[in-house]
Every structure is written in C-alpha cells, then in structure tokens.
C-alpha cells in the first residue's frame, strides 16, 4: 500500500498513540471492521449488493471518505480488503496470484498456478478455462464464477489499452519524478512498447519568459488532476528564469495562469560569471491532489482544511503546512524559489501567492533543482553564485522557517541536486564524496569517499532493492557505485557494495526501474553522447552491477526517464543541433521513436523530462514547451 506523505505522518502518530495506549494498531480485514466503519452512515450491507473490483471498492471507499467516513488509512484499507475478498471481482487475465486467490477463495498456490498457466498459455476466455488449470480445485470456483472477469482493455485511438490508462491522472511532482530522483514514471500505462508507434508531437507553446544567461525554463512538473474552481484540470507548471511561474492545461495547451514573482533583491547580481546569471531558482509542487480517476492505490482524503476559504494573507507556518497537506479535491501549492532566494508558495489553482514569501536561499544563488520531502524544502547551490556552495533545508512545519545549511565546498553534482531517502536522509554528491545528511537539520550522518574522484558526477538515485535502500552514485570519471544507505561505503567510507565502469563520463541524473516481468533492476545514465543502461542483480547475496546496453548517439542527453518498458532520452543538442526526443526499448536500447526535426531549438543540458498520463514534456532554451505523446479524443 502506498500512502501519501501526509497520511504517513498521521499513521505514525496513530501508531504511536496506539502503542502508548496499548490498543491493537493493526486492523483486520474483517466484517466487524467493515461494519464499524461503514455502519455509522448506512446499513453496511447496502453497499455490497454487487461485486466490484479492488479498484472499484477503493473508489467507493474514497467516495465515502469524501462524504465524511472516518478511520485511519489502515482501517479503511482493511475495509477495502474485506470488500474485495468477500464481494470482489477479479480480472483473472490481469491480476496477481495473490489477488486471484483472495477474491476466488483459493490458496496462494492455486492463485500462482492460474498466473503460471496464463503466462504459459495466454489469457483465459471463460470460467471453465480457469477451472481446468492443473492444481486448482474447480469446486472452489463454482461459487465464485460471478467474481471472475476476463476483459482487460478497451479500444482507443491506438488500439486496445488498459482502461486505467485512459483515465490516469498521475503526477510528476518534481525533477526526475520525485525526491528519490528515480526518474521512473511508475504509473504510466498509456505509452508502452505496443503503443509507442502512435507517439507524436501533440503541441508546443512558446512562453514569454526572458532568458538569464543559458537559463530559460525549469523542467515541467505535471499535476494529474486538480479539482479547481475552473474545472478538473491536468496542469503543467514551469518556472521561468525571469521570475515567472506558468501553468498550462496539459491536455488542451492553454495557459491557465502565469504569476510574476514579486522578487525583492537589494543587492545586484554578481557580474562576470556566466554561471551566475541569476533568475528563478526552481519549482516543486505538492503532489497529493486528486490522483488517478480510474482507481489508485491509496485512500484519498478530502483534506485537512475546513470548508470555506483560507485566510487571504496567511503567514503562519502551520497554514503553509495545511496548504501542503492537500488531499482529494484539495488545492495544493507550487513552491517557487525566486531569484531573491525567497520561497513563494503559490496556489496550484490560480497562481496566487499563499501567504508571504519565506527567506530560504541567498539571493542570486544558482540551484540545480529544489526538492520537497516530508514538509521540508531542499536545495543545493552551485558555482558559488550567491555565496559558498551548500545544501539548504527549510522545515516548513517548524516555527520560524529558518533554513538549515550544510556547506559542501564544491558544487553539488548532477542536474537534480539532492536525492532524499525514504527516511528523509538527504544525499548529495559534492567534493568527491556522496554525503548523507540528517533530515531537516542537515548534519553529516555518513559519507562515501569516491575513490580517485575528480569531483564531477551525477545526482545520486535512491531506491529499494533486495530488502535494502540503495544509492547509486556516478562520476565524471565513468564509475558507478552502489551504496547501502545504512552504511555508505562501510567502515572506511570507501567500500561500495558494487562498482562498474560506465564507458564514459557520467552526467546529469539517473533513472532506475524494476522490470515487473523479470524482476531486474535497471539503471540508466547519461554519457556525453549516449544513454547507457546497467543491471543490478543479486549474486551470492551481494549486488552486482553489470553493463546492459549503450544507445546510439544522443547528444548531451538530459537525465533519462523510464516508464512502462520505455526509456525517454532528450538529446539537448548544442549550438548547431536542435534538441531531439528519443524513446528507447528499456531492455535493449533499441530506438522506438525519434522526434526528428519537430523540435526547433536546443535545450539546456541540465534540463529534464517529465512523463505522465501518456505524454512526455520538456522545454528548450527558446522558452518553448513541447508535449509528445499519444493523442486522445477530447
């Protein structure tokens, strides 16, 4: 179960309270639990007159939550589990063995037998075909025939696609997809190896931003759905170097709003260093708005705010945190850091300023990417523009809003600045080290001294693999290292779990995903003129990093993104070459799509891609936003 960050805090608090009081914290997916939570508003049996899939039950429970149903996420997910088990339907051609066993009243082994049969012989046509599977007790299925469904896809302009793909409303809330910098659009269903042939340029839009040096637009962020006062909107957010934040209707290519930040800089920008051209430092957004409409995996709450309008001039930190804790249907925030180093919280709905700007970074700093995790905003400054290079953290849930600071000496490496672990640890690659900093107050907790490092490198990526949280770091010398978050580099701080030569200097940021069909963990990295893939496997209980493939030429690739078996790479071009989008087979590197000459300008090498809901977005140095993807009928 994935839960939102806000819910995570609530759950922790609930668990702590339960532990203190001696209560049982783990609800059972029982009829009693179902009746306790649903029976306060209506007769419980009312809702169970027809079988529904897990997604449908989750939607139903979320509707009830929006209507005021009470309970912790665990309580309500237990209700979903009970309803799925007792009144569920399951698509035997798509579902996991566990879900099949749960809904059809089978043993785990019987569920696994059905999935294995499906893998070997293809999909089932009817219940009789399922009953013939060796190892399955057909008598058990007799009473659950009405719980089996077999369809999987509906017609779209590109052929048959999963139903959920058509109504997906997923987010891309920050650079490289989120705090861990995985660069993995996990929920993507629309674009796949089967449908990539339908990808095309959907639109481009030139914005009225003015460049500051080579700085133009930030990488786009995607909000899958905001229930706004102007309707349900899938929104793009981009920051412009001229201290402007833009929102575009991601499907209709309409400007929804643009907000010039009221920056106030008392000192002039430093002269003579082209890397310190100033301008807007970055944006990130709260990302737990309405979420997908076709299902989802979590309880969606109506938000913590009471009905009515927020104070027009909120100043208290608590109000900012309330704004961050957006839930189902609740307005969220875009957090923009202006050239004056102040944080400007903007309503996602209309771009209006939420409260007052909050001091965060030195004016005129140069920041690769801001990062938001657990109510804390992070940024790594580079090139010594506004002062010494450092990592900053602003605890948005603490009084006073004073930013913590950790000086790194050298610039943070890579295009994505920091990566943040699931426990809030902040990882940064600077000064030939990968440094682990404690959440929010930024004390050095650990480090890995990169052997023979020249200093250049890549923003680390954090992911779970083999029961551990791992960090992959890369250098300009062409080395990849796998690190254990529990002990970076071991006792001597110099011993990685695994290492491999990349075949060239590494740059920007990684992407990483786990192929659900094979269980293989892949890591994708940018070389100067190609994208390289690596695999991470467990051998004899130890991780082993191996070269996978190297793509054909991709000039100065931006940080890659992986989604549903596809790798998206952006050749950012150079003075004589325009940017080009490539889509590659994630397992082989085979080119599946190229944008050809559709893009008319080069892109900043430090930019990034965004992928969500059947579309990929990026911006170029002439302040143009591009959307490629699969067209849908409006």
């Amino acid at each position, binding site marked *: 179960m994935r839960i939102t960050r806000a819910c995570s805090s609530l759950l922790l608090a609930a668990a702590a309270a339960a532990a203190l009081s001696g209560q049982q914290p783990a609800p059972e997916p029982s009829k009693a639990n179902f009746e306790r939570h*649903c029976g*306060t*508003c*209506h*007769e*419980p049996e*009312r*809702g169970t*007159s*027809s079988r529904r*899939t897990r997604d*449908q039950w989750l939607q*139903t429970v979320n509707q*009830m939550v929006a*209507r*005021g149903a009470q309970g912790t996420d665990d309580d309500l997910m237990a209700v979903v589990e009970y309803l799925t088990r007792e009144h569920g*339907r399951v*698509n035997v051609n798509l579902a996991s063995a566990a879900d099949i066993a749960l809904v059809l009243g089978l043993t785990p082994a019987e569920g696994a037998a059905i999935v294995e049969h499906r893998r070997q012989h293809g999909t089932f046509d009817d219940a009789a075909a399922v009953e013939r599977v060796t190892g399955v007790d057909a008598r058990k299925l007799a009473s659950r025939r009405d719980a089996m*469904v*077999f*369809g*999987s*896809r*509906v*017609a*779209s302009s590109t052929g048959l696609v999963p*139903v959920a793909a*058509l*109504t997906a409303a997923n987010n891309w809330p920050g650079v490289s997809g989120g705090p861990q910098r995985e660069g993995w659009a996990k929920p993507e269903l629309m674009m796949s190896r089967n449908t990539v042939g339908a990808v095309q340029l959907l639109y481009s839009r030139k914005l009225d931003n003015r460049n500051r040096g080579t700085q133009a637009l930030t990488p786009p962020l995607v909000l899958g*759905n*905001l*229930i*706004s*006062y*102007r*309707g*349900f909107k*899938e929104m793009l957010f981009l920051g412009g170097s001229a201290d402007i934040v833009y929102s575009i209707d991601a*499907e209709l290519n309409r400007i929804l709003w643009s907000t010039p930040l009221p920056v106030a800089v008392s000192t002039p920008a430093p002269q003579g260093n082209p890397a310190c051209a100033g301008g807007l430092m970055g944006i990130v957004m709260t990302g737990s*708005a309405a979420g997908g*409409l*076709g299902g989802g995996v979590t309880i969606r709450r*109506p*938000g913590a*705010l009471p*009905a*009515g*309008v*927020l104070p027009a001039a909120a100043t208290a930190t608590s109000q900012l945190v309330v704004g961050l804790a957006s839930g*189902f*249907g*609740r*307005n969220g925030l875009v957090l923009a850091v202006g050239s004056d180093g102040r944080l400007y919280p903007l*309503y996602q*709905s*209309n771009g*209006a300023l939420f409260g007052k700007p909050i001091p965060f970074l030195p004016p005129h700093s140069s920041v690769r990417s801001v990062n938001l995790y657990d109510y804390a905003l992070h940024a790594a400054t580079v090139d010594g523009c506004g002062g010494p290079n450092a990592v900053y953290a602003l605890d948005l849930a603490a009084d006073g809003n004073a930013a913590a600071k950790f000086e790194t000496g050298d610039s943070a490496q890579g295009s994505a600045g920091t990566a943040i672990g699931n426990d809030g640890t902040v990882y940064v690659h600077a000064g030939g080290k990968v440094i682990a900093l404690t959440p929010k107050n930024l004390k050095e907790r650990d480090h890995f001294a990169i052997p023979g490092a020249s200093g250049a490198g890549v923003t680390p990526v954090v992911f779970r693999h083999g029961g551990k949280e791992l960090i992959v770091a890369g250098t300009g010398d062409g080395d990849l290292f796998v690190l254990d978050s529990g002990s970076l580099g071991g006792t001597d701080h110099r011993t990685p779990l695994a290492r491999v030569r990349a075949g060239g200097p590494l740059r920007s940021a990684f992407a990483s995903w786990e192929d659900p069909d094979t269980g293989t963990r892949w890591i994708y990295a940018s070389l100067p003129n190609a994208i390289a893939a690596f695999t991470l496997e467990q051998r004899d209980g130890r991780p082993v990093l191996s070269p996978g493939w190297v793509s054909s030429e991709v000039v100065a690739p931006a940080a890659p993104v992986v989604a549903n078996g596809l790798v998206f790479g952006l050749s950012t071009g150079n003075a004589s070459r325009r940017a080009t989008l490539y889509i590659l087979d994630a397992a082989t590197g085979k080119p599946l799509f190229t944008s050809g000459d559709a893009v008319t300008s080069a892109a900043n090498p430090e930019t990034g891609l965004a992928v969500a809901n059947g579309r990929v977005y990026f911006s170029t140095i002439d302040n143009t936003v591009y959307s490629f993807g699969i067209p*849908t*009928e*409006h």
Partner: protein
Amino acid sequence: MRERLLTAALVLSCGLTFKAGAQAPAKANWLTDGADVQRSGWQRNETTLTPDNVRNLKIVWKLQLDNVPREMHALLTPLIVGEIATASGPKEIAIVAGSSDNIYAIDVAAGQILWKKHFEYPPARTSRRPGDTLCPGGQTATPVIGPPDTAGRRTIYALDGSGALRQLNVVDGREIGRPVPFTWRDGKSYALNLFNNVLYTTTAQGCAGNPNQVWAMDLNNVELVKTFNPGSGGLWGRTGAAISSDGTVYAPTGDGTYDPENQVYGNGLIGVRLEGDKLPLKDYFVPSNWAWLRKRDLDMNVTPAIFTYKGRELMVTSSKECRIWLLDPKSLGGADHQTPLYRTPLLCNEEVDFAAAGIWGSMATWEDARGRRWILTPIWGPSHSEFKAPVSHGPVTHGAIVALTLEEKNGALALAPAWISRDMDLAEPPVVANGVIYTYGNGEDATQATAEGGLNSSAPRRIPLSKKAVLYALDAQTGRELYSSGSQIASWNHFSGLSVANGRVYIGTFDGMLYCFGL
C-alpha cells in the same frame, strides 16, 4: 399514449358531470416530471397561454409552504392534475413535494392548500454528513400521479426519505396501503416514472451507501424490486429515466469508468427493460471521448428526451460537455456503441468546467404545426465561441436556451441550430406549450470549488451566494423573449423544475414559496 387517452376520457366524462361548475374544465395535466414518460417537456394540451398573450403573465398567487429545505433542496417540480372530484366540487390540484418529506395539495384556482401529508418513518440509526449538497437525504424524487381508476380516483406515488413508496389519494392525501420498501434510506433518487403500472427511479451520488442504479417496482407485485446497476457512475438525469414505446428505460450514467467487458458502463447512457423478474441491460451508448468526459468530470447527466419523427422513434441526450447526441433507440450507438446518428459541436463549456457549465438536467422536444421537430436544451455558462445560431438575442455569459431542428439531408439526420435565447442565470430545463417556451434562470450558486480551497460544494457556502430565479417565456420559433418575471421571484432553487397547465406556470423556490403565474 394510453395515459392521454384515459385522461381525455376522464375529462370528457367529468366535463359532462361538472360542466356547470364555476371553472372551465382543465384539459391539461402535468402528471410526471418532464411532462410524460418520454420526458419531452412538451405540454401538448395548453390552449390558454399563447405567444400573443403570454406577455401579460403575472403572479396569480404565491403560497408559502412550510417545507424545511434540506441542504439546497426544497420544492420539487409541481404536478398538476385536473378534474379531481372533491367534496366541494371538481378541482384542479397541484401536488408539490418538499424535500423534508412533505406532500402538499393545492387548489390552483384558489391558491390554497387542500391538504398536506408529512411522511413519518423511524429515525435513522446512522448519521448523514451535514452540509452535503449532493446527498441531502429526505425526499428527492418528484412523485408521479397515476391514471384514474375505474372510479376516477388517482393515486400519487411518492418516495420518502426512508426509501419507501408511499401511495396517496389525490383527493385528500389519505395513504393507500402501507409504505413499501423501494430504494434505501437517504439515497438520492430522481423523478419517478410510471409505465405499464411499473414505477421506475434512478439513484446517484452513492448517498448513504446506496448503489447507483435503475430501480423498478411492478405495482402488481410491490414486494419484488428489480434493479440494474451499471457498475459505475450516478444516474442523475434530473427527471430520472425516460421510457420508449417498447418499455425500455433509458438513463444517463454520470461519470465513471467505461469497461464493458467487465460490465461497467460509466459515462454513458443505458437502456434496460423489464423481463419477468429481471431488469436486464438491453443496449448502451458511450461517447467515443468518454475518457475525456471522465477525466474532466463532464458527466452524462441529462435525462434523454424521446420522440417520434416520421414514424421512427429517436432520442436526444447530452452532458456537461455541452453537446447533443441524437440516438436511435433501436441501436444506441450502433455496433460499437459509440456511434450516434449525429452529434453536435460544442454549444458551451469552452472552459471545460465541471460545475456551473454545460448542460444539466433534461431537455425538451416538440413538433410544430409544419411538422418540424425541435430540440431544446438549457446551457449553463457562456456559449461556445465557435457556436453560432442563425438567431441570437445578445451575448450569453451565464446560460441560455438553445433550440435546434431535426434536419434530413441525403438520408442522414442532423441537428441544426435554430436560435439561442437571451442570457439567463443558469437556464433550467425548458417546457414548451402552445408555441411558447418556458424556462427560468435558477439563480443558485452552482460552484463546487473555490480558488483557494479546492473542491467545496457544501450547502452552507453556496446558499448565501445564491440569488433569485427569473421566469422567462420565449417565442418557440425564434427564441425572442416574450416575458420575464424580473425581480418578482424572491428566492432561487436547485434541482427543481417548471410545470405548465391550463394557463398557469408553476415554480417553487428554496424558501418554500410556490408561485403560480397566469393571465
């Protein structure tokens, strides 16, 4: 048709009996929301009000009813039934349902209450979320008045807030038989429809855990309730389901997933037909852009209007997206269920908003003396910048009525824009009678989100922002305004409707006031 014949027969017999009475025989009734089972919104028997005299409309009477609003819901569409034999002679009676489980019978000639019935039932063991506009509880379905029995008695069929069917004698409000469970408590049911002695309703919003589905109750066997659940989305066409000549019951399925292989039919229109003790799906239509409608919450929310054109039954429906689909009930959407006979361009909702925009409620259709078939729809919000009607009456920014005509070209049917009315504040489903269109701007605050807070459709926020309803009469051929009530109506309404009969136009408002306009 059978209903009209029975009515005509009764009027004839009553006319013989009461021709010496003080008032002229009432020829026109309004026995069900939307005028008839087809939900045409067409009062065919109006003769008093004409395009020439309707400018003289005035408030004949207004009556303060003691219904207590539930959230934004108050009085439902008035029903009108004439020639009711009472102890004080034959009367034309308005039956008005109130959200707080009230039924009022009003002598329309005198503007006085004849009787009131309040439905009592055991209090709920569960609690409802206060302020929830979408789920107000109480009575939400406009009742229906049945045909006269052999003794000329008529029965009101109503659905109380406990989900029980209540049957009342029109004459005195006396309850006939015991309450019979039909739907479930605090569900949101929509207008009842009666066809071949079977009652139908639809439910939406999943209120109080109620499934969203079509419900049917055979009055010959009230113990057996039949349902069809489309698996997704609420069936919230304002006037419930529309019924075609073969008894197929059509209802829009709100917003939801469309996944026919898994028997899920959200964002579409379903047709079900009673067969024995089952209510199976007979056909369905889903717009080819259903996923877009789903993502933008542009529900299929309009009760279809069914009509006959050159001997062929046809149907129109719409959604918050703001276009009209022309469908063949014999094959909704063709083989792929996604191909209508015709679909119009967008009439409004360029903003792609889910609230206070698009088409809401129901439509109307009529045929003029020259045999031309007209389709009428209300729109909310500004008209689409690319929609042009041959006749218009000024900029439309808040809502309007759009009229289209059914055209035949090379054997293909199409809907051609004819006119768009003046601007009105959230135009409500029109009623057509004797060459005049009646409609009103409902004046409610229809927003469901705020810029700062996001989703928020709570009644306590919206009620203070609501304004006043305004009744309009329009020339049916041109859309020209013939009458406006201006500021005479003091309040607004939400999810209600108009009725027209025998020279009078009825509208109820949130404050419990029932208005009767006439000459």
